[in-house]
C-alpha cells in the first residue's frame, strides 16, 4: 500500500509539473495574466507531492520492505540503519527520485521566495522549471520506477554494495545533487529571461543567490566526494579524472564562471550574452553528467550499469532541453540590447579573462571525457584519455587562472591601469618570488607544475586577503568577506595539491608481524594481524604502531573486509592525521612466508586540499548570506582603491 501511495504521489506531482508549465507559459501570452497567480501555488504543490514520494521511498528502505523490487535488489535486512536509509539514493532509480525531489523543492523555493523579478519573467522561470521536471518525471515513471513491486518478496535482499556503506554516501550524493539541480534554477532563469527578453541587472541580482547556493553545495559535494574516494578506495589518490568525477567538475567550472559573470551583469550591466550562455551551459553540464553516468557508454568504477534504452531516454531529454535552450539563445540573444562595454584592464576585464579560462578548461575536460567515445564511434578503435592528458592541459591553465585571481579583486571597475594594479599586488608578488626561491633551494628537483603551484599558492594567499587591507573590517560587507575566504580557499587547496604531488613518500613491502618499516619520518612496527568480525562482514585487521622521532606512538588498524551479501572484498585504510600531513596505511593480501602486503604513505599537507575546498564553500555561503540579507545602508560595490594609488 505504501509503495503504491508513493507511486501515486509521483504521478500527481508529474501532472502538477505539467500544469505548472502550462500555466506559466500560458501567462506569457496576451490576456494570460490571470494565470500568473496560480503558477506559484502549483509549483509549491508539486514540490509537496514529490517530497512525499521521496519520503515514502525512504520509509520503504528504512523498513526494508522486500516486496519492493528496488529494496530487494539493493538492500538487505542486515544492512546498518544509516545505510538502509542512505541506500535509498545509492542506486539509479532512487537517486533519480532524489534529483527530481530537489528539482521540485528548488522550483517551489523560487516560487515562494523570489520577489525581485517582474511577474512575467518569474512565471516563465517557473514554467521552465516545470518543463524540466516533466521530462524527468516521465523518465522515472516510464522507465525507472522506484516503486515497482516484486510478485513474490524474497526472504532477504541482495545486499548493499559494501564500498557505499560509508558516511560519505549519506553526505556526498545529496550535497552534490542540491548543487546539480540547484543549477536548474539558473537555467530556468536564463530561459525565462530569454523568453521575456529581460536580461539585465535585475535578472542578474535575482539569479545570483541561487547560483551561489547551488555552487556552494556543488563545491562541498565535490570536496566530500574527493575525500571519500581518497580514504575509501585505498590507493591514496584524490582525483583521477574519471568520467564521473569529470561529470561533477564540469558543472562546477561552468557555475564558477557563471558566478563571476553574474556579478558583472548585476553591478555593471555587462556580459549579458555570456551570463545567459553560462547559465544554460551549467545545468546542461549537470544533465550531461547525469547521462554519462547512467547510460553505460563510459566505463567507470562509478557508473550505474544501465541498459542503453534508459540511456537513450535521457539522451532524448538532453537533446530537447539543451538543444531547445541553445536554439532559444541563438534566436533571441541578438535581439537583447547589448549591455555596457568596458576597458580590458579593469575588474570586468579580469572577470572576462576568468570566464575565458574557466570555459576553456571546461571545454578541455568535456573533450577529453568524450574523446574516447567519439574515436570509438568513428574509427572503431579504443583509446584512453586519462590523468596525464588532463593534468598537462588543464594544469597550466588553472595556474594562470589562479595567478589572475590574485590581481582581479584589487582592480577597479570600468577602467584601471596596469602600473597601479601592480603596485597594489606588489607584496603578494614579492612573496611569490621569495617562495619560488625558497622552494627551489629547500626542495630541489620538483617538477614544474608542483613548483609553480607551491609558489603561486603562497603569493595568492597574500593576495586574496589584499582587498581587506586598510578597511574597517567590521564595516566590510559580508559578501566581500565571502570573496576573500573563497579565494583564500583556492590558494590553500592549491598548496595542498602541490605538496601532495611533490612530497608524498610511499613504501610498499611484504612484512612479517614484528618487522619495522619506514615511510617518510615515521617508523612503523607491524605488530600483529588479527581476525575481526563486523556486523555484515569479517575482517583481517593489521595493527601498526607508528612513531616519529620521540613522539608518542600512534596505532593504526587497516583492514581487509570480506562481505558475503553481495560477496565482495574491500580494503579499509587506516589514516592518522597530523598538523603537517597524513599517514595513510593499507594492508593487502598475504603472501607466502607468513608475510602481508603493506602499502604505506606519508602525505605532507594533503588535508589542505579539502580544507581549501571547505573554505571555498564557506566563502560561497557567506556571500550568499551577505547578498540575501537586507542591508541597512546601501553598499556600493567597492570601486575606490585610492589609497593604493
Amino acid at each position, binding site marked *: 500500500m505504501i509503495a503504491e501511495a508513493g507511486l501515486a504521489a509521483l504521478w500527481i506531482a508529474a501532472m502538477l509539473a505539467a500544469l505548472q508549465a502550462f500555466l506559466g507559459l500560458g501567462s506569457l501570452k496576451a490576456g494570460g495574466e490571470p494565470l500568473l497567480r496560480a503558477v506559484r501555488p502549483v509549483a509549491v504543490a508539486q514540490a509537496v507531492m514529490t517530497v512525499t514520494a521521496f519520503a515514502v521511498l525512504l520509509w520503504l528502505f528504512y523498513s526494508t520492505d522486500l516486496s519492493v523490487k528496488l529494496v530487494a535488489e539493493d538492500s538487505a535486512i542486515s544492512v546498518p540503519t544509516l545505510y538502509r536509509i542512505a541506500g535509498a539514493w545509492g542506486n539509479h532509480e532512487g537517486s533519480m527520485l532524489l534529483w527530481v525531489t530537489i528539482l521540485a523543492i528548488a522550483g517551489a523555493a523560487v516560487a515562494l521566495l523570489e520577489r525581485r523579478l517582474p511577474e512575467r519573467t518569474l512565471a516563465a522561470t517557473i514554467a521552465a522549471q516545470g518543463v524540466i521536471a516533466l521530462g524527468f518525471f516521465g523518465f522515472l515513471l516510464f522507465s525507472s520506477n522506484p516503486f515497482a513491486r516484486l510478485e513474490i518478496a524474497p526472504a532477504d535482499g541482495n545486499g548493499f554494495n559494501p564500498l557505499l556503506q560509508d558516511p560519505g554516501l549519506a553526505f556526498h550524493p545529496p550535497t552534490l545533487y542540491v548543487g546539480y539541480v540547484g543549477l536548474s534554477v539558473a537555467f530556468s532563469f536564463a530561459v525565462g529571461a530569454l523568453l521575456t527578453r529581460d536580461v539585465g541587472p535585475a535578472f542578474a541580482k535575482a539569479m545570483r543567490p541561487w547560483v551561489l547556493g547551488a555552487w556552494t553545495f556543488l563545491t562541498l559535494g565535490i570536496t566530500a566526494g574527493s575525500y571519500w574516494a581518497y580514504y575509501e578506495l585505498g590507493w591514496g589518490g584524490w582525483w583521477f579524472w574519471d568520467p564521473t568525477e569529470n561529470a561533477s567538475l564540469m558543472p562546477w567550472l561552468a557555475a564558477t564562471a557563471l558566478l563571476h559573470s553574474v556579478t558583472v551583469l548585476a553591478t555593471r550591466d555587462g556580459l549579458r550574452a555570456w551570463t545567459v550562455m553560462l547559465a544554460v551551459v551549467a545545468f546542461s553540464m549537470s544533465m550531461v553528467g547525469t547521462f554519462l553516468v547512467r547510460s553505460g557508454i563510459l566505463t567507470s568504477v562509478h557508473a550505474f550499469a544501465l541498459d542503453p534504452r534508459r540511456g537513450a531516454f535521457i539522451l532524448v531529454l538532453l537533446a530537447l532541453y*539543451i*538543444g531547445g535552450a541553445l536554439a532559444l539563445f541563438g534566436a533571441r540573444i*541578438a535581439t537583447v540590447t547589448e549591455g555596457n562595454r568596458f576597458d580590458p584592464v579593469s575588474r570586468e576585464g579580469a572577470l572576462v579573462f576568468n570566464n575565458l579560462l574557466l570555459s576553456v578548461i571546461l571545454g578541455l575536460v568535456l573533450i577529453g571525457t*568524450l574523446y574516447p567515445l567519439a574515436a570509438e*564511434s568513428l574509427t572503431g578503435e579504443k583509446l584512453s584519455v586519462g590523468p596525464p592528458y588532463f593534468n598537462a592541459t588543464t594544469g597550466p591553465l588553472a595556474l594562470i587562472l589562479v595567478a589572475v585571481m590574485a590581481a582581479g579583486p584589487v582592480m577597479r571597475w570600468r577602467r584601471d591601469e596596469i602600473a597601479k594594479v601592480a603596485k597594489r599586488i606588489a607584496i603578494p608578488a614579492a612573496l611569490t618570488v621569495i617562495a619560488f626561491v625558497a622552494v627551489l633551494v629547500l626542495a630541489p628537483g620538483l617538477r614544474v607544475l608542483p613548483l609553480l603551484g607551491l609558489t603561486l599558492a603562497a603569493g595568492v594567499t597574500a593576495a586574496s586577503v589584499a582587498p581587506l587591507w586598510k578597511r574597517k573590517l567590521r564595516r566590510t560587507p559580508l559578501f566581500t568577506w565571502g570573496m576573500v575566504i573563497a579565494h583564500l580557499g583556492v590558494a590553500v587547496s592549491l598548496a595542498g595539491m602541490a605538496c601532495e604531488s611533490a612530497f608524498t613518500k610511499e613504501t610498499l613491502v611484504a612484512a612479517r608481524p614484528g618487522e619495522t618499516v619506514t615511510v617518510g619520518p615515521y617508523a612503523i612496527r607491524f605488530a600483529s594481524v588479527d581476525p575481526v568480525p563486523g556486523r555484515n562482514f569479517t575482517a583481517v585487521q593489521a595493527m601498526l604502531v607508528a612513531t616519529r622521532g620521540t613522539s608518542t606512538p600512534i596505532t593504526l588498524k587497516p583492514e581487509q573486509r570480506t562481505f558475503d551479501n553481495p560477496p565482495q572484498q574491500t580494503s579499509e585504510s587506516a589514516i592518522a592525521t597530523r598538523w603537517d600531513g597524513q599517514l595513510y596505511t593499507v594492508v593487502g593480501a598475504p603472501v607466502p612466508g607468513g608475510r602481508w602486503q603493506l602499502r604505506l604513505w606519508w602525505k605532507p599537507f594533503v588535508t589542505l586540499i579539502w580544507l581549501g575546498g571547505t573554505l571555498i564553500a564557506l566563502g560561497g555561503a557567506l556571500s550568499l548570506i551577505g547578498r540575501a540579507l537586507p542591508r541597512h545602508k546601501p553598499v556600493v560595490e567597492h570601486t575606490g582603491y585610492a589609497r593604493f594609488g
Partner: protein
Amino acid sequence: MSLRTVRILLWLPLVAFLIVLGLVSSGLIKPHDASVHSQMVGKPLPAFSLPSTRAGQPPVTSASFADGKVRLVNIFGSWCVPCAVEMPQLVELKREGVIIEGIASRDTPADSLAFLKRYGDPFDRIGDDKTSAVQIAIGSSGVPETYVVDGKGIIRAQHIGPIQPQDMADILAAMKDAQ
C-alpha cells in the same frame, strides 16, 4: 566584429551540441563492447619458452608453432570457473582432430593437472605460465581466451571468453581460414 558574424557565432554552441549528440547517440546504438581485444592478431606469436606442466615433457616454445599445422592456443587456469564451463567444447574439438595447446596462467602444475583430470584434457601440450608473462605478451586480458595460430606461427584470430557450443562453428571456420 560585424553583427552578422556575431549572429552566426551565437548558433555555434547549438551546432557543437548537435555534433556531440550525434557522436554520443552512435555510441549508444552500438552495444558497448567492454572487452579488450588483443592487438597481436595478424602478428607472429611472441617468442616464449614455457616449462611443461606435464612432468617429463620438453618445454613448450613459440618456435614449435611454425611447423605448418594450424592450432588453437587456449589460455586457462584451474581457478577459473568459465574455463571449466568450456572444457566439454574443447574436448569435442579435440575429438574432431583439432590440435589444442594449453597455457596455464598463474597456476601450479598440480592444480592444473587436477583440473584437467576432473573436466577432461583436450591439450596436446601445456605450458606453465606462472607469471602471466606469455598471457601479457600475447595481449590477453583474462581467462579463458582462445587463439587460432596458423602454420607459420602467426596469430589469426582471438576468441574472448569461454567457447560455448554456438561458438564452435566460428572457431572451426577461423581455423579453416588459417590453413
